[in-house]
């Protein structure tokens, strides 16, 4: 039986929707104005952005950085959190505390600290966004990835599934890849979405370490061209959502944990 939605709930939903959509709508209308007259409507601002070489360079860099950060985070944190849940549950609160640190430490402090820490690092690492910047982003993404994965591991019986798999002859690697990972897929995806969103929008660290990423490009457009700035903002919004959607499509498979969590239908 379909539940009736109360009128008050509809009102609140509309208020919430307005809160999110009015700024988007305003930005959209602003981005459609003509540079010369300020009147509606033209796609010239979008044309300016699309024909800007820097747009493509920075969007490519940020996308690759996002994928690299997600890959490092998953490779680093999935086995770690798995082992903590399985063998060292007492370490879980310690990890949870460590995961809060990137929230607490201001990005400016973090970037100064990291720049000093990696000063002696080889040039191919220190001078390259996929070296230094990706490392900083892994630290930034740590809390999001940790809490998502931790929730995923807590939703399954890690001990029994691991023992059942080993009992049937699987080694650690097979157990992790064939049994554990598919059952925390939803959590890994959630962590990946958040990481993607952070990397696509991170400004402070990239700016202070002088890497020209997509958010830096948005800022430079914003300083010089008002209407294209609105256009690029909306485009970045669309691109991030499209990237999330494609991650979802790549990660989705029949019979995933997500389906199980929402119950049999």
């Amino acid at each position, binding site marked *: 039986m379909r539940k009736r939605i109360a009128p008050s709930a509809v009102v609140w939903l509309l208020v919430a929707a307005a809160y999110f959509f009015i700024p988007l709508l305003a930005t959209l209308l602003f981005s459609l104005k003509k540079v010369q007259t300020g009147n509606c409507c033209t796609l010239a601002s979008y044309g300016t952005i699309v024909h800007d070489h820097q747009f493509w360079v920075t969007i490519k860099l940020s996308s690759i950085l996002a994928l690299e950060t997600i890959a490092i985070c998953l490779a680093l944190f999935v086995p770690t959190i798995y082992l903590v849940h399985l063998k060292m549950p007492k370490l879980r609160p310690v990890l949870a505390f460590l995961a809060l640190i990137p929230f607490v430490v201001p990005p400016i402090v973090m970037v100064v600290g990291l720049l000093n820490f990696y000063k002696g690092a080889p040039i191919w690492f220190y001078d390259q966004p996929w070296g230094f910047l990706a490392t900083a982003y892994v630290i930034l993404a740590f809390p999001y990835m940790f809490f998502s994965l931790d929730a995923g591991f807590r939703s399954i019986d890690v001990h*029994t599934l691991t023992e*059942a798999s*080993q*009992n049937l002859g699987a080694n650690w690697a097979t157990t992790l890849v064939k049994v554990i990972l598919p059952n925390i897929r939803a959590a890994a995806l959630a962590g990946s979405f958040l990481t993607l969103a952070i990397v696509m929008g991170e400004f402070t660290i990239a700016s202070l370490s002088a890497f020209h990423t997509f958010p830096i490009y948005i800022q430079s457009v914003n300083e010089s061209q008002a209407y294209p700035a609105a256009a690029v903002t909306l485009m970045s919004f669309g691109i991030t959502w499209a990237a999330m959607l494609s991650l979802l499509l790549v990660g989705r498979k029949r*019979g995933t*944990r997500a389906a199980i969590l929402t119950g049999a239908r």
Partner: protein
Amino acid sequence: MAYLELQNLHRDFGTVKALDGIEIELGEGEFLSLLGPSGCGKTTALRLVAGFDRPNAGAIVVDGKDMTRVPPNKRDMGMVFQAYSLFPNMTARDNVGFGLRIRGKKRGDRHGRVAELLELVGLGHAGDRYPHQLSGGMQQRVALARALAIEPRVLLLDEPLSALDAKVRVQLREEIRRIQLELGITTLYVTHDQEEALSISDHVAVMYGGRIEQMGSPAEMYSAPATPFVAEFIGTMNRLEGTVVEGGVEHAGITLEVAAVRGRPRGTRVLVLVRPETVIVDRVDGGAAANTLVGDVVTQTFLGPVTRLKILGEGVDVIADVPTQKALALPVGTKVAAMLPAEDARVLELSDEPLPEIAEEPAPAGR
């Protein structure tokens, strides 16, 4: 020669001795139940055999091969867990075929074997369903098929029925026994349910405090318990403490004639064990007969064909199972005489140690 041997197994967790030198020898194709209250070490023993844990001392030998240090994924032990353990991301068919896939069996061979096993556990029709689409009983059947698929050296069952409801439990335990006999697979079964253990096993080992109190056939365990603990744990038992005197045992001021006490020195403190179904109860009328304790019926518990009476009197605390028809004539408050059988009662010598209390088994976690 024994097929499965647990030799002097010790396992300590800090200061707690979970296993304190257990010895088991099991022939090929036999079914042994480890029975005991929670914390007795039965699951620890099973986990050692599966390889999920290592003993502090002792050895596990299967078919003449020492398995003590072999990792769990190389032991070929099929295990069914207490918690639902099917892989949620796989269908029933993929779950059963998982062990075969790991062993590199070809798709065609695998499919044939999986279908055969699903048929064996009565789930030939449910191969495409995911675990969340199966009931608890069905999930444990699939888990059984999955454990059997790898043709294990020993089948290990860790309270596999404890999360199921009573009717399914009885049904499934009979099926486990049928399949075990059909395949002739050596099986180690852990349970805290004595009825379950007695009904499906070739041998039962009652464990307490990390040790095996007694091991024998179900009939032996029921009729000839070797220790007060076993007497208490297997079935219901009247335990009457007394002292050996001329012609019997003195208890509650009267001398009970007990055949089993003959030859014991006078003054020995003993425990007389009497099954409730062997006690004969009647209304008190006139003179006291031999071997009779007098008291009042204080409770009646209906158990179907029999009704259990609790009889309390001066120094008397006896329970008796009487035919339900007869119990109608002995309502609560009736003064009755409970006659204990001279021949059927067993006697155990009492040590100075207090009798063990049997801990309540916690309700299984139904997941």
